[in-house]
């Protein structure tokens, strides 16, 4: 019996090293769980040629949109083959919030993130021609108002939580109006249907000539928006962002994960990649598999608390 187990372990070991030594030998499918053309797609497209060079195989980008990413992530944990040839883009807080909300057939813990490569911090923006020039102006404008309308993408989302948090620490009456994405949120602000947007750094950069960013929800200022103060500098503890990373199906051999993890790390540290991403408004981050796990574990209770708060507000 013992021998049999030993033999099995040995086979698995030999098999897996054999496997690892030969990984990858065929094209890898990189699944984007949102529509083409969005931030996740653009990220994958920037990474694609560099990944191909490092791994030596074609990287095929496909899409599985639906349910705010839930359709793709359900497939990732329930149906995808754990051989390293299918990898999926993942997002925080999405993969934490969806299971908390319920109704999705995956658990946060089932998603094996191997790398988180960037974030889009929340930013508070107003139209460029608005009389609100600074965050102080915004506070003055909002104080004593029955309500101030803050648009953003999705609910619950990093945008909605940042608004919730800001309302709480700055003691302002903010009403969060969720939109289906930045594609509808930006015109709502430009058309004066909301007073401001709690959006992402990518929007702040891409609409620089139409929108003024008055504060950013990061720990430190970001290089591509050097004049924008952080909420913390202004005396309000609001730090909120969305992470973008990549995961493999549960049960993927450790050796294969190492190879993919190393490839993503190398791509992410490439100065060309960093420059391209920062130009669009992404903040570069580097969380390897171990650190990604810690990050998710740390954020789960945090988002549970925020979710409970949102639920109370709704009542």
């Amino acid at each position, binding site marked *: 019996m013992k021998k049999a187990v030993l033999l099995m372990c040995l086979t698995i070991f030999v098999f897996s090293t054999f496997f690892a030594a030969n990984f990858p030998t065929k094209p890898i499918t990189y699944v984007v769980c949102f529509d083409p053309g969005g931030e996740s797609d653009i990220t994958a497209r920037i990474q694609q040629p560099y990944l191909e060079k490092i791994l030596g195989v074609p990287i095929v980008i*496909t899409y599985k949109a639906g349910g705010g990413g839930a359709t793709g992530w359900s497939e990732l944990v329930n149906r995808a083959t754990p051989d390293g040839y299918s990898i999926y883009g993942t997002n925080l807080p999405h993969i934490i919030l969806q299971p908390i909300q319920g109704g999705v057939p995956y658990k946060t813990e089932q998603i094996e993130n191997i790398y988180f490569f960037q974030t889009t911090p929340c930013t508070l923006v107003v139209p460029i021609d608005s009389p609100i020039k600074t965050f102080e102006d915004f506070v003055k404008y909002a104080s004593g108002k029955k309500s101030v309308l803050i648009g953003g993408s999705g609910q619950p989302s990093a945008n909605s939580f940042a608004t919730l948090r800001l309302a709480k620490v700055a003691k302002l009456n903010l009403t969060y109006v969720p939109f289906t994405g930045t*594609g509808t949120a930006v*015109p709502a602000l430009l058309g004066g249907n909301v007073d401001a947007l709690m959006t992402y750094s990518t929007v702040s950069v891409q609409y620089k000539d139409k929108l003024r960013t008055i504060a950013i929800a990061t720990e430190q200022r970001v290089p591509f928006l050097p004049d924008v103060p952080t909420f913390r500098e202004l005396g309000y503890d609001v730090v909120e962002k969305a992470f973008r990373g990549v995961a493999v199906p549960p049960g993927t051999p450790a050796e294969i994960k190492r190879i993919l993890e190393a490839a993503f790390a190398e791509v992410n540290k490439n100065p060309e990649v960093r420059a391209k991403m920062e130009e669009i408004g992404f903040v570069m981050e580097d969380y390897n598999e171990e650190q990604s796990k810690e990050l998710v574990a740390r954020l789960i209770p945090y988002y549970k608390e925020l979710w409970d708060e949102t639920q109370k507000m709704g009542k």
Partner: protein
Amino acid sequence: MASFQYLLSAIPQILTAKILFLMIGGVGIGLVIGALPGMSATMGVALFLPLTYWMTPSESLVFLGSLYMAAIYGGSFSAILLRTPGTPSNIGTTFDGYPMAKQGKGWQAILIATYSSLYGGLFGMICFLIFAPMLARIALRFGPPEYFWLGIFGLTVISSLSRGNTLKGFIGGFIGMMISFVGVAPIGGNVRFTFGSSHLISGFGLIPALVGLFCIPEVINMVIQRGQKQLFIEAKVEKGTALRIFVEVMKKQLDLIRASIIGFIIGVLPGAGGNIANLVSYSEAMRASKHPEKFGTGVAEGVIATETSNNATVGGGFVPLMTLGVPGTPVDAILYGALLIQGLRPGAELFTTRADVVYTFIVGVIAATLIMVPIGLLFGKGMTKVVYKIPIHVLVPVILLLTMIGSYCVQNNISDVYTMLILGVLGYILRRFGFEAGPITLGLILGPIAETGFTQGLLMGRKLDYPWTVFFIRPISWVLIVLSVLFLLWPLIRKQSPSVGGVKQ
């Protein structure tokens, strides 16, 4: 007239061999994708986006723009020949196009669709050139309350889409709205009516639903009428038909212009597109017609209305995309991504900083619309011949296979195939009881728009003393409310003045 100068200088740009090749390629691919049931223009553009990463910005935009324009037109082929809207923009084309085909006038219907698409496409692009900056500002004033009323206004179209029985039409629209509620809520993100099934999380997709509701009942009918060998009456096409129909279509300037304007305006509004435009335009054509009762039996005006308006939305959709940097339709969202990847930021400054790109794009799409006609007619003729010759027992499995592939391809998701089949059977049963697919799909399309506008509107109302009033204090809302009431009461108004309906026997 700086723009005119740019326009002229763009003409030689598109006359290079490479751009011409890309235009023809884009049109060809677009036609095939449009004609395949389940493959929408959005999908086609998304599918071929990666090909453009190695092109220059102008090449990329001309290629994708040509593909987009041709896909919306190509969707009329399957609408006419298979009673399946090739894209959501061709729903209304099935109403009159398919009866025409069954009467042996399929080729004529395709000719009508071709000329109408050409007209609408050019009209939309020219309006885009002239009115873009002005309209972009108006489109911005369209906030959540307006979208709510737009949804309601859209629903009033049902009163004309449901021939004979308005009540059944509204029930159908209601059923469509109920179906649209399944899945993750557009606002708030709650998961609703999924009954614990993971297949239903993302709800019932519009494209699988369309394919199911329109095509499957027809397939079931074909199987039931087993005795019949051929679906269509084979009719001889005389020489010179193409020219004769061209003259006939061009004589209907009023219909063409009405449909073009409706398509263009709906295209300008962010979030609304050809899927709404073709139905509204159909209903308006019927309202304006001297013989509305003939609609649905195979009249040319029905096909003209839908096919003109859907191609006019293309130019309309470019307005917010190119002037505000805000995508108006799903396809425009992908084009937005394409521009970003090229290192260009869509928006008004693109017209000055990269005028070469913008004007090459505009001229390129206009040229592609013209190229679309000969290629489309060649393709349409072939498809007509093939479909007319296939016996039913071959046609049925081929159509079924196509619908399944099409539904699966939308999101590479088997759930969509189930959606298509289940809604197909449901659609068949409902049709037996007099509930048409048109109003149901309208409910399906407008449900999320009205719902999102309603919820966001109520949140906006928190600024006011009485939140509800937000829906009644804005000028564009008033216009939409008045229009809704007027159109809802139209059948009554019409009945009370018999002179409007012409002489009735």
